[in-house]
């Protein structure tokens, strides 16, 4: 018996695929923005003079980096439900992805902070910059510039990982595919199509980040390069 593939039968569901892809991008967008903020805070927290804050940030980063995203999503989903809070699957998915990518961002940012030469901090203090000014101009901006490639590939991985949110019935691309394949009995074609869509989305994201980096950081510094 030969294998019959019928892509048109699945492709006629393109509006659903499009909706799923858009939701995947929305998930990725919100989680990236919120996770970048959370991760930066956690990275700053790890440098805190208060050992309690520094330790709490370390526990957060290590706990998240050493457990699977699937478990984290279920914990957030059922954890919120068990204290009586009811949110949409989308909100839960964004929350779980944010917590997840925040930890990875924190670790990347820490590497960026560590690469700031101590002499620059001393120079900044010598010029009587305030703590906030030092953090912004001497630590944060140069650090982001250095770790930008690592950060952006983490965000692309986040977009791909958002497929796991299909397990709590957030209607993103993979959930749409699960629905379509159970409806058309054409699992092979359906999953090939979304694999191609994910590859396309990750290429689009990488191109977008590349363009953004070009605008934001024209000097293209690398980790470890002197200023």
């Amino acid at each position: 018996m030969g294998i019959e593939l019928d892509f048109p039968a699945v492709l006629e569901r393109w509006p659903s695929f499009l909706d799923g892809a858009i939701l995947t991008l929305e998930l990725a967008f919100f989680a990236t923005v919120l996770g970048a903020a959370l991760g930066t805070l956690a990275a700053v927290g790890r440098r805190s003079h208060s050992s309690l804050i520094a330790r709490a940030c370390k526990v957060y980063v290590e706990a998240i980096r050493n457990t699977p995203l699937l478990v984290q999503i279920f914990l957030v989903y059922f954890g919120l439900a068990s204290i009586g809070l009811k949110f949409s699957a989308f909100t839960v998915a964004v929350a779980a992805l944010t917590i997840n990518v925040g930890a990875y961002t924190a670790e990347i940012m820490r590497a960026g902070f560590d690469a700031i030469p101590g002499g620059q901090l001393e120079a900044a203090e010598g010029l009587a910059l305030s703590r906030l000014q030092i953090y912004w101009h001497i630590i944060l901006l140069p650090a982001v510039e250095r770790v930008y490639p690592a950060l952006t590939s983490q965000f692309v991985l986040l977009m791909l990982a958002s497929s796991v949110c299909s397990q709590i019935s957030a209607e993103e691309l993979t959930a749409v595919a699960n629905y379509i394949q159970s409806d058309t009995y054409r699992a092979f074609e359906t999953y090939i199509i979304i694999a191609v869509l994910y590859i396309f989305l990750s290429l689009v994201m990488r191109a977008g980040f590349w363009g953004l980096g070009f605008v934001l950081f024209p000097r293209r510094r690398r980790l470890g390069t002197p200023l």
Partner: protein
Amino acid sequence: MGGHLNINHLLFLGHGALWTIGLSLIALGGGGVAGFVIALARVSSLKSVRLLSAIYVQLIQGTPLLVILFLGYFGLAAVGFQLSPLAAAGASLTLYVAAYLGEIWRGCIESVPKPQWEAAEGLALSRTQRMMKVILPQAIRIATPPTVGFMVQIIKNTSLASVVGFVELMRSGQIVNNSLFEPFAIYAIIAVVYFAMCYPISLYSQRLERRMGRGKFNLAPA
């Protein structure tokens, strides 16, 4: 419904945890062998081999593991190749791990300082000799910390095998939850078990990295 977590549930979870370790080893073994081939192909002298392996890496790294799993289990079944959950999960993880390890190891091979390549060529070593006797022994030293670090990713990613019905730790947790319905407590236990498996490996990887950093043989180009 009802009942409390008892010793049988814990034994069942323990059994699942063993399969998580088993599946991780399958993925590491299969993905390690295939990844080694990919890494060598990425630095091959043949342009077509370099291109094909680069395309493979790009395709796998642009696709979520979950979709690869669905393709291997439901997709292949729909066109007449029914794989068992173990075979589907093992094969999908192998393909996935191969792409990432191949890319990590290519970086390690390429970070062996240029003079080493030139010296080997100057000593009239053949390509195979140069690779086996000069480049790889040094590349393996560089590759150890990131490879150990990637093992954590492998263990975490085996949790996705639960969606095709393979009873590893995550799936056994879901099954126990179906009878007790205490999701938060059970998934918290599952998270702790994953952490207990992954954290020691993370620490070991960090230690290896630090040791490399201040090693006597600093392999960074002078």
